[in-house]
């Protein structure tokens, strides 16, 4: 499966993401610059983490209005898989591809540590290599990961199985409502999550719990 990684000024986990995709799929992803309006023919588009445009104004707000995002929307409409991690998640929300908003962490502090994630829905294109209820290790590193949605939206995404990952075992690092760590769109092809599975994929990372997410999205057999 072919993948692409979006690059925007201020994103800084693009290299981590490119390394992870290359290691897991055996094929380097193509990179796409923010001004591109014609996207290559790929099966998965990833918006990595970072501080696009400094996260000035609101996290992801400026990035979400760059030309490449129109093209990504069009691809998402056609059914191409789109994954946003951390700042990528924030950008997808600002672009209106996912419901809700991410606010400043309840502690008001940047937090970088390992947390536990529960796989709430193992039937998505991004989580099928996990089992429902499985508890994963995963690092987080963010300042604005406090997921919020109004009561109606929340009900809707909970009922629809759109909450794919939840912080487990009291490890919610940011105050997210319902411990939500990752949500998918209604159609099931756009996922956003705050934690960084790309930073836990090999022995050097001290574990590989993040690997299966990419293995699912790239349709490759999860390998250690």
């Amino acid at each position, binding site marked *: 499966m072919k993948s692409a990684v979006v690059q925007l000024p201020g994103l800084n986990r693009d290299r981590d993401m490119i390394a992870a995709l290359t290691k897991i799929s055996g094929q380097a992803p193509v990179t796409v610059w923010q001004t591109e309006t014609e996207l290559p023919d790929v099966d998965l588009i990833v918006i990595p983490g970072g501080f696009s445009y400094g996260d000035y*104004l609101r996290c992801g707000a400026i990035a979400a*209005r760059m030309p490449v995002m129109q093209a990504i929307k069009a691809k998402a409409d056609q059914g191409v898989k789109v994954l946003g991690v951390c700042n990528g998640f924030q950008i997808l929300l*600002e672009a209106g591809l996912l419901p809700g908003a991410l*606010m400043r962490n309840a502690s*008001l502090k940047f937090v970088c540590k390992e947390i536990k994630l529960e796989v709430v829905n193992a039937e998505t294109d991004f989580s099928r290599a996990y089992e429902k209820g499985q508890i994963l290790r995963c690092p987080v590193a963010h300042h604005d990961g406090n997921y*919020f949605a*109004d009561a109606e939206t929340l009900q809707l995404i909970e009922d629809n199985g759109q909450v794919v990952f939840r912080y487990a075992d009291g490890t919610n690092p940011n105050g997210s409502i319902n411990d939500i760590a990752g949500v998918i769109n209604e159609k099931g092809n756009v996922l956003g999550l705050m934690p960084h599975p790309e930073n836990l994929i090999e022995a050097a990372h001290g574990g590989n719990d993040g690997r299966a997410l990419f293995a699912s999205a790239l349709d490759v057999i999860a390998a250690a």
Partner: protein
Amino acid sequence: MIKARVTVTLKNGVLDPQGKAIEGALSSLGFNGIGHVRQGKVFDLEVEGDDKAKAEAELKDMCEKLLANTVIENYTIAID
């Protein structure tokens, strides 16, 4: 040249971690009787020209497209 101030505030019911933290900090600094702190943003801008109605329409457009996230925020525009 028209000077404008756009004020963006969180909608009622939207969680405001910063406001809450400030509320706590104020009370721990000994300020009592302070309730409901909400934090928002202001943008001071200069718009070329002198047609205020046009500027206002343009500012509204900027708010909708960029300055406010209308899912969670309201905005007001004040022109000098």
